[in-house]
């Protein structure tokens, strides 16, 4: 172990000797400039902080106004949903219809088309060349 540590000490001593050099006069420090710079940085930081805070406050005001608008819109929407449902109340519609002089309808009837319309693939000419009845005037039946 000791045989290993001895050469390292010599190397260190040599290095120190190599780094010795003549040093000039200490560099002149501009204290005033340094102070001004510090003041500027601090001032900028304060200004930035105040500005950001002011911006945040301004946006908080906007956010609050938007929250109020959203809340009001939601309130109006809920009220409109309830109003529409009330207007659709079957009892109200029935009463309104009776006020208008309408009478309750009879039993329901369904209409069945005995012949398809052109949109359903109906043709105007039969296979034997004779002209079919006008498909646009289908025969209506209520027999069912």
């Amino acid at each position, binding site marked *: 172990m000791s045989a290993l540590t001895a050469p390292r000490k010599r190397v260190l001593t040599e290095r120190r000797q190599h780094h010795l050099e003549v040093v000039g006069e200490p560099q002149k420090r501009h204290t005033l400039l340094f102070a001004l710079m510090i003041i500027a940085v601090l001032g900028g930081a304060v200004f930035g902080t105040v500005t950001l*805070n002011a911006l945040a406050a301004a946006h908080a005001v906007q956010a609050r106004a938007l929250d109020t608008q959203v809340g009001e819109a939601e309130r109006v929407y*809920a009220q409109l949903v*309830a109003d529409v449902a*009330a207007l*659709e*109340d079957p009892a109200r519609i029935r009463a309104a219809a009776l006020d208008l002089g309408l009478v309750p309808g009879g039993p*329901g009837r369904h209409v069945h088309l005995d012949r398809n319309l052109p949109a359903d693939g109906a043709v105007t000419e039969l296979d034997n060349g004779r002209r079919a009845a006008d498909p646009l005037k289908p025969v209506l039946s209520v027999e069912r």
Partner: protein
Amino acid sequence: MTGQPRRLRLLVPTRVRRSAREVGTRRIRWLLLVYGLVFLVMFGQLIMVQVVQGPEYADRSVRQRARIVDLPATRGRIYDRDGDVLATSVQAATVYADPRAYRPSQTPDGDHLPAAGDSRATAEALAPLLGVEAGDLRERLERDAHFVYLGRQLDWELGEQIRELGLPGVGILGEPRRVYPAGGLAAQIVGFTGIDGEGLQGLEAQFDAVLQGRPGMLAFEQAATGGLGIASGTRELEPSEPGTDVVLTLDRDIQFAAQQAAADAVAVNEAASASVVVLDVTTFEVLGMATAPSFDPSQRGQSDPGTWRNRAVTDVFEPGSTQKALTVAAAIEEGLVSADTITDSRASIEAGGKTFRDQHPFPGDRWTTGDIVERSSNVGTIEMAKQLGDDRLYHYLREFGYGAPTGVGFPGESSGLLMKPSDWWGTSLPTISIGQGVAVTLMQLASSYATLANDGVAITPRIVRGTVGEDGRLTPTASTGERRVVSSDTAAQVRSMLERAITGEHGTGSRAVVSGYSVAGKTGTARKPNPDTRGYSGEYVATFVGFAPVESPEIVVAVMVDEPQADFYGGTVAAPVFSEVMGAALSARRVVPDGGSRGLDEAMDAARLAGAEAAGMVDRPPGVRGPAEPRR
């Protein structure tokens, strides 16, 4: 003496010099001591403030600037099957006051402060707006309290109007209010909430946990004097979760028709109540469930609490002759009879030591099972029940849903009353087979007939179609299992016999016809048990239950009229209600007419003709059927 002045002279300059140094040093030491003491005091105070009282001050600071706002959850809506709103919540205005504004007070310095407002003037200004006596308002304003309600859940516009008055100590709070836009439509089913939004009745109570959602919280910092929140302060938002919407299986138009018909039945027959149940045959979904008299949930304070009950599922009654279809179905399923089985007719039958007879004895010597159902014969039905025996009859009734809640999902559903065969006595078998000594809810009765209409397969009825979460998607209610009660063939045979009960010459339900549609069903008339004695009272329950169209049933309607006064037969009291509701339901569900049975007018004409014929005034022309006799 001479030595003293010299010594003094010598000593004085030295002492002066020493004194100056010592004094300076001493002063510095004193100053340091003072500084040290001040520092110690400050340090001690610092320890006291930061360590000993630190948590308290920190807590006080938080209390002064922290604000926590509760964010109430919006209660879910209740829709009908088509998305029409049956119950929803709107923002309402609650008016409160701080009574301290209406009495003199003292500042912390002991200065007297006059009252900020005049309670009399405020009360008189608010009374006409709130609809409350001014004296009552003044009493509230002069209470020894910090907060009193002056009016809760008022219209928002009214709250705004009151806010603009700028009354001292009076404020407005936003508060959700439950509204039922359709008024009394499905009132007993939907139920209602309390003033604080908690479900109290009906599905509002049943699904309260689902509907109410989860309230949230907003925590932020604010100056102690109020105003806007501190923008750079901490802000913690836990948004509220709105309640889940509940979609019912009800059809608003069918529900209205059922309610209207039930209310008319009560009025026309001077009945105590009437209930109607409308079921979809293929799904057993409840399309309508009405009870009259009803109430308006928005004004429930002025209604009789007895009207809040959904009698269709909570009240039981003896089904009477409507029960006979189930007894016949059991006999057919067991192979004892078929629709065309011909047997010797009997005028009476002995069972359990008692003789049972028909009100209108069968005129011929032989009858078919169809004749028994058409004529609603007690004797024929009891004969089949005797062949079935106690256990098999009980088994089939349980399979049809008697003696247990249907599981429709409504709170307070009754099981009905069906004793076990071991508890039956001698007359239980014959009486139960014709619908006496057994009690069912109208929902059970409708479900049992829906089973016959659904080719013998029973499904658990349901009234909630599903829920709608925040994503707007419908999550259907879990489908329940099906069970076969009777075979398809048995169900078809019973259906054809039930059609005869309406269209047959001696059918009891001719007033149940629906123009354009074939209809099958059964009337029932039962005396009500006397709660004070073991016998029956003089009151009746008239019922009718049936379905349409017969070949491919789509709708089942069950009607129960309780204590009708003018008339009490199911065929004359309940059947017309059935006809009206069934017609509306078939139309609302767009069921294609199948031609149907003869119309009511035709049936009435035939009845008049037969009456005249019986009186010997005219001869019956060929092809015209006789009248329908009302029968139990």
